[in-house]
């Protein structure tokens, strides 16, 4: 298994390289730049600005310099526990932001990622806590009114977008009932509405996938055998069916967790959460070249890592699969 993981990690290097190269050049060919503003700068000032940010170097040189800054130069993973600074830990320098010259991209990621992680973990918790029982219940009570209720709830969750559900929850619980702040990220109570909103969409998907996975498993021979041997219904579901029934959910969770952990632009905007999702999207609007690259690289890293985790977990859960 270790060899498998090692090989997958090696394969990730060219993937990362293509992502970095593609992003680096694509963003430069988009009209407008970090200093394009409503009030034009004078030619002298523009010259000074380009020199200050080394944007007047040839593009290949800027690219090479940037790649060098990204190359890991040391290995102190424990430094990550003190503020998650990739420069301290691995010598990876994402450089200062163009839009916020006061902050480096490393610092922005270190500041914002924990917030997105917190929101992501809470939402995932909500998603699993709601989605799994709904899905299992629907599958076990297939074609009964319980199934129809559970499936309708899941379908509604998929169809109602977060930018509708979020403001509705705010309207009900913050404005009319006054239980919560309308927006903000101060005390623990401010986590409730955003986690519910973001979690509900994923809960809906998880419910549908769980139902599908379970229906397939419940027709297998080994389940019939278990029943024939007189196992109780609870034992059949939790001891025998759960492992196989959850496989589709696990493969869904890989990319979903990457997305959920690196932040959600919509949720972060609706609830004014200082997370990474807003930086991700706004950096593109601001043409903040270094921040675009930093967030893209981070997101890509998460997806690659979580896909690997999913593959390992699937082999672990499904005896039919092997590492190859």
């Amino acid at each position, binding site marked *: 298994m270790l060899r498998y993981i090692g090989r997958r990690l090696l394969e990730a290097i060219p993937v990362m390289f293509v992502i970095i190269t593609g992003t680096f050049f694509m963003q430069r060919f988009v009209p407008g730049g970090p200093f394009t503003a409503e009030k034009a700068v004078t030619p002298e*000032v523009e010259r000074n600005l380009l*020199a200050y940010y080394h944007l007047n170097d040839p593009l290949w040189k800027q690219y090479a310099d940037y790649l060098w800054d990204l190359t890991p130069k040391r290995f102190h993973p424990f430094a990550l526990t003190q503020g998650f600074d990739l420069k301290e830990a691995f010598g990876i320098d994402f450089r200062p932001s163009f839009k916020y010259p006061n902050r480096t991209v490393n610092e922005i990621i270190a500041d914002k990622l924990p917030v997105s992680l917190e929101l992501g973990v809470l939402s995932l918790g909500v998603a699993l806590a709601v989605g799994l029982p709904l899905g299992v219940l629907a599958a076990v009570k297939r074609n009964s009114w319980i199934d129809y209720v559970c499936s309708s709830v899941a379908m509604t969750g998929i169809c109602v977008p977060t930018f509708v559900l979020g403001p509705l929850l705010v309207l009900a619980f913050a404005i009319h009932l006054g239980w919560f702040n309308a927006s903000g990220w101060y005390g*623990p109570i401010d986590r409730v509405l955003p986690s519910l909103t973001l979690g509900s969409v994923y809960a809906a998907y998880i419910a549908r996938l769980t139902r599908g996975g379970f229906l397939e498993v419940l027709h297998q021979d080994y389940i019939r055998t278990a029943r024939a041997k007189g196992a109780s219904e609870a034992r059949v579901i939790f001891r025998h069916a759960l492992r196989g029934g959850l496989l589709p959910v696990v493969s869904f969770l890989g990319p979903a967790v990457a997305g959920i952990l690196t932040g959600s632009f919509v949720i972060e905007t609706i609830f004014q959460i200082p997370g990474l999702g807003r930086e991700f999207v706004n950096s593109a609007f601001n043409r903040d070249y270094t921040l675009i690259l930093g967030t893209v690289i981070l997101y890509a890293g998460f997806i690659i890592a979580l896909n690997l985790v999913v593959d390992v977990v699937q082999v672990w859960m499904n005896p039919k699969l092997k590492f190859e």
Partner: protein
Amino acid sequence: MSDPRFFHPIRLLPAVLLLPFLVAGCGRRPAAEAGGAPARQILRMGNSAEPQDLDPQNIQGVPELNISMALFDTLVEMDPHDLHPVPGQAESWTISPDGLTYTFHLRPGLRWSDGEPLTADDFVQSYRRILTPAFAAEYAYLFTSFVRGAKEYNDGTLTDFSQVGIHAPDPRTLVVSLKQPTPFLLKIIACDYVWDAVPVKTIARFGPIDQKGSHWTRAGNLVASGPFLLKEWTPNKRIVVTRNPYYWDAARVKLDSIEFYPIDDQNVEERMFRTGQLDVTYDFLPNKIDTYRRDHPEELRIDAWLGIYYYNINVTKPPFTDARVRRAFALAIDRDELVKDVMRGGQTPAYAVSYPGVSGYAPRAHLTGGIAEARQLLAEAGYPEGRGLPPIELLYNPNQEYNRSVAEAIQAMWRKNLGAAVTLTSQEWKVYLDSMQTGHYQIARAGWIADYPDPNVFLEIYETGNGNNYTKWSNAEYDRLLHEALHAPDEAARYECYQKMDAILVRECPVIPLFYYTKTYALSPRVQGWWPTLLDQHPYKYVSLKN
């Protein structure tokens, strides 16, 4: 592999399921943020966007200005009632008869918020910093356009700063020498933070002073000169400023602190205002104006705002090379309808470029003539009833919903009144700016908010070669008048030049003025002393809260 039965993912499920409730369930709303009736005077403001930086020499936007006004004091202030310059850090000043030398006399005992004396040399060193080429300050042009030697120093042809017209003969005297008379210089100093002194000695402790974004602007490091000092800066969350005991006019300041919230969504802002998390919003949803007018008129504010919404015309693209066509398009718009039915926020229709009533100036020029004249002009230009017109494209950016509504309304008016078929194109903000700045457009939506209250602010844009003149229009007489105005013996003569310039703009129509902006926002009735200035700047030292 370890025993799968022991460390099986399914066994972890209950823990995962319970996690959100364990973390989220145990919280209570902290008292300070409950939005109840705080005993302390805390003003909570919506402030649109996360500021780029808090260094007054390295910022440009309005959110930055709002915070900068709290932290950094100005040499000269604006009277909040009529915007005339009144003493700030300078207790008095003299202007030489030729209008080229300004001598400012600083108040005795001025101090930075760390207790260090604030002297005239701080201003000299600050201005030297903003003009240093390596520092690459975007707003350096607010010096280079007027101050003797500043342009040369900023582009590197002059390296000796003592040749630049900025001197401090003694710790309380600052002398600024100009290359040409600039009758509105005091207004610029009062309204534009680039003329504020920055704590150069503190900045030097955090790195080279010509380096952007060193850590001197972080909370704990920043040394202020204004009514407040920086207490907290959490990006994308909030910025908190508290009272500065060293501020020269500290006795007048009533607020204990101001909290700035970077909220970029008007819906969110309005909800936070409704739940009492904000006392004043930055912006307001146009579609909520009617509801507030009906249900909460005491919370809705619609202030006149020194800005104009207009269309730029690229005069190098046919058919707009012909001034008659430009004027025909400008005349064929019903501005009353636009303001009443589309904008609905109390805006004033604009029939000239200059804002009526700014600093006692009102343009006599007026886009009169109406649709009959518009049709006749178009026919004279060879396009009777719009026949033979080449394809025309109107460019706008979708950042504000009303840009599209206005464009659609005008598209319909041009079709109805002139027979002209115009297509609408929407481009993302920076793409739109790039198209406009590189001249890849025919007609483009634009807006301009004045930096300082003077007619010059709108008129100088259309000077030949001005970096913001995206129309490519050029008129020798217009350029001459702009220059003549600066040398005019008195304000009446200066304003007479502006009258002639406004008349040229209305005749030649490189731009189509549409309406003058209003600033719409929600303001809690608790807030007192919030002066409605034309520039949407509200000096915080007059503001207080009624509990």
